């Protein structure tokens, strides 16, 4: 049996823990076990660590510490964020781009409203700003949700150019983008997830600007921070990871951008293959393409067999057997879809190896299909 380790090319699903986070996590496990609401020594220790984590994350996001709360996940941050903005406004409508993360779509489905509206994107996945401005001015709109970058195709949204009425807050889902691109100053609420930037899983972040109306939509105190015992060591490790990631961001992003450019070129040169998403206004580390006549599950398996771990938005790889709503909204081919996302350790040799494996795998699958 070959013991070559898998080349992990699915950082956009979850990053391996950043070394800075690992050291901090181990140290914080020793010190951060107490209840930060208690006044004894262990409680005070935990409180210091948690406040420190919050202050670091706030600074990294361009926020004040009191504007930032930890949640159990990026999904929970979106749920608390959107529903809390709606609860404070007394209105129920949420306007969003058609390519938002499923956490946004599920939140809307759970709290249905005739004032919800989905705004179309173009073939690159970029939202129609005029249609967004128009939709946000209709009656009953409580908030607008626009992601900073798309988790499947990497296209960046022009969040700083979104034109909203003063009374309508903008929630920016930055989960796919934090640590990879410069964050905008323009947001009223912002959400993120630590395991997407190299922190531990189970740490989400919800930030709400002072002066933005937000009311707890769930049981418990009307505080941005949810009730329930906080995971202090994980929060501190998430903060350490983000700090470290931002320190190296420019250098890592430039390298990843070039390697992704190479994958885009190789994939585009394959017969009947379409590279999806904006070629320039995109995340540095992520690329998606679709190959005609190839099953998403087949290509993922064929690449895994050759030692490369990738994701797919094709229906046959989804638990629901529904194709990706992102690819569908863009009018892109939904089958034969491959998403490749690099991490800070990905090398040029690994990318070269992947490109060779991809060419071979696609040709093999098509030959078996009789095409």
């Amino acid at each position, binding site marked *: 049996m070959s013991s070559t380790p898998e080349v992990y090319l699915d950082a956009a699903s979850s990053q391996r823990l950043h070394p800075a986070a690992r050291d901090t996590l181990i140290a914080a496990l020793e010190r951060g076990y107490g209840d930060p609401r208690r006044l004894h020594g262990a409680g005070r220790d935990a409180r210091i660590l948690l406040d420190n984590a919050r202050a670091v994350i706030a600074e990294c996001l361009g926020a004040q510490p009191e504007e930032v709360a930890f949640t159990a996940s990026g999904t929970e941050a979106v749920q608390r964020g959107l529903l809390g903005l709606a609860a404070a406004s007394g209105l129920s409508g949420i306007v969003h781009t058609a390519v938002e993360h499923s956490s946004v779509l599920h939140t809307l489905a759970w709290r249905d409203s005739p004032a919800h509206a989905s705004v179309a994107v173009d073939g690159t996945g970029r939202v129609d700003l005029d249609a967004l401005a128009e939709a946000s001015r209709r009656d009953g709109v409580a908030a607008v949700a626009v992601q900073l970058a798309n988790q499947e195709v990497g296209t960046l949204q022009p969040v700083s150019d979104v034109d909203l009425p003063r009374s309508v807050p903008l929630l920016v889902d930055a989960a796919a983008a934090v640590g990879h691109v410069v964050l905008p100053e323009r947001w009223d609420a912002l959400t993120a997830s630590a395991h997407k930037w190299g922190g531990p899983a189970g740490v989400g972040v919800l930030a709400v600007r002072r002066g933005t109306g937000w009311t707890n939509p769930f049981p418990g105190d009307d505080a941005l921070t949810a009730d329930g015992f906080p995971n202090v060591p994980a929060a501190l490790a998430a903060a350490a990871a983000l700090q470290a990631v931002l320190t190296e961001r420019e250098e890592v992003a430039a390298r990843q951008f070039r390697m992704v450019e190479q994958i885009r070129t190789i994939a585009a040169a394959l017969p009947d293959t379409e590279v999806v998403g904006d070629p320039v206004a995109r995340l540095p580390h992520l690329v998606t393409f*679709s190959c*005609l006549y190839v*099953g*998403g599950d087949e290509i993922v398996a064929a690449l895994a067999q050759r030692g490369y771990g990738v994701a797919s938005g*094709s*229906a046959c790889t989804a638990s629901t057997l529904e194709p990706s709503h992102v690819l*569908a909204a863009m009018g892109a081919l*939904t089958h034969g879809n491959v998403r490749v996302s690099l991490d800070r350790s990905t090398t040029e040799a690994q990318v070269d190896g992947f490109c060779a494996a991809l060419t071979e795998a696609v040709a093999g699958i098509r030959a078996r299909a009789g095409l």
Partner: protein
Amino acid sequence: MLELDCRDLPCPRPIIELAKALPSVVVGDLLAVVARDPAARYDVPAWCRMREQEYVGEDLADDGLPRFVVRRLS
């Protein structure tokens, strides 16, 4: 019109059948794919765009399942 019965074929087989059947249709004529596969709704138009054929639209087959109609252009 040539109608391809892809009712019980999983993604991406309906598109593979469409590609294989195209040469049997005269340029300018229509052919249709009947499929339960939820990806077909997006992938037939995407295939037409990529292969430079015309996507005519979606209607219903005799049994009420979605049918996706294509015109051969080349």
